[in-house]
């Protein structure tokens, strides 16, 4: 339960930061949520708790009072990231990286610009690696590694 509460706090903070200009580097925003979901997917396999994380962030990130396609794409992408991490057959870090890159690609799809996508992907990959290292140090170090579902 503690892991879930920590995850929820991190997701809420990341979502609030995501809608500020603080993350802008050279006019490009990294996607903290994509990186966070790609890492937190290893922590909790319960889909109800995952859904709470996804909808908490979606509620904060919503840029209009009503529902738009961007919101639906974001929620679907978040669930897809969790599923990719679960079902990809590679090592855990590689799964997270692949899920993070795929999530970035889907969210960039409506206005695809190669240079922007490449830079955002690079930032997100670095974030995934940093989050993964933190996860290994603070949480997974105390547990035995779980095998991949394949």
């Amino acid at each position, binding site marked *: 339960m503690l892991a879930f509460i920590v995850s929820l706090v991190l997701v809420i903070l990341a979502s609030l930061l995501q809608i500020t200009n603080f993350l802008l580097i050279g006019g490009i925003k990294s996607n903290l949520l994509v990186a966070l979901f790609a890492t937190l997917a290893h922590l909790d396999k319960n889909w109800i708790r995952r859904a709470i994380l996804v909808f908490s962030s979606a*509620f904060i990130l*919503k*840029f209009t009072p*009503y*529902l738009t396609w*961007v919101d639906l794409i974001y929620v679907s992408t978040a669930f897809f990231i969790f599923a990719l991490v679960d079902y990809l057959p590679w090592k855990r870090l590689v799964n997270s990286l692949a899920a993070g890159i795929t999530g970035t690609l889907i969210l960039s*799809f409506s206005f695809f610009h190669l*240079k922007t996508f490449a830079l955002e992907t690079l930032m997100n990959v670095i974030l995934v690696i940093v989050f993964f290292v933190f996860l290994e140090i603070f949480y997974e170090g105390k547990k035995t590694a779980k095998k991949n579902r394949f």
Partner: protein
Amino acid sequence: MRKYVSIGALVILGVLFVWNGFVFEKKLSVSSFLGNLVDIDSIDVAELKTRIGTLEKENERLKAELLGEGDDAINSIKVYSSHPFNSRSEIAIAAGGDKGISVGDTAVYAGTVLVGRVKSVFESSSIVTTIFDPSWEMAVRIGNAEVDALLKGGNELKIYLIPHDTLIEEGDAVVSADKSFPYGLELGYVKQIGNTEGDVFKEAVLEPVLQLKNIRNVGIYR
């Protein structure tokens, strides 16, 4: 029991996700507060100098308005937050229908720098599409020769359709010349010119005056 609590929380979040009109503006102000909190140490001296410059400019303009030379503008509206993803460049501002803002109004920074156009208006907040949005297009004029061209938005602002036989130089000022906006709003300077022999038109890269990262307040021209 824990399972039912989780499902209950999920249902509430689902409802908030579909419709969050009643907490929308409060949510934006919380993120604005957090943004200011984390950003306070990242401001360097150069940025502060730029800010002082723009504030001095704004001060002059406000003085002029107080003396009766003002126009139909709303000044100093707080910027709440910006769109979370790179696929769009939009900002939420703390004024809406209650201040008479309507869709299509022009958002400016320091009175003379074009920020963008109001896209949607709510009771006490509005969404502004900025010049950095990938879908942004507008007519501009370059330099003292007032050469007509087309500006396209995105992470890197580009100017297209510059007639090949016209003389423009790096550093030339670029201003708005679109019928949707007041004429002559500042956009930036020509940074780099792409010249291809034999082409009818040439292209250029714009160095924008506006830095979204530093923007805290905007004004609205109606």
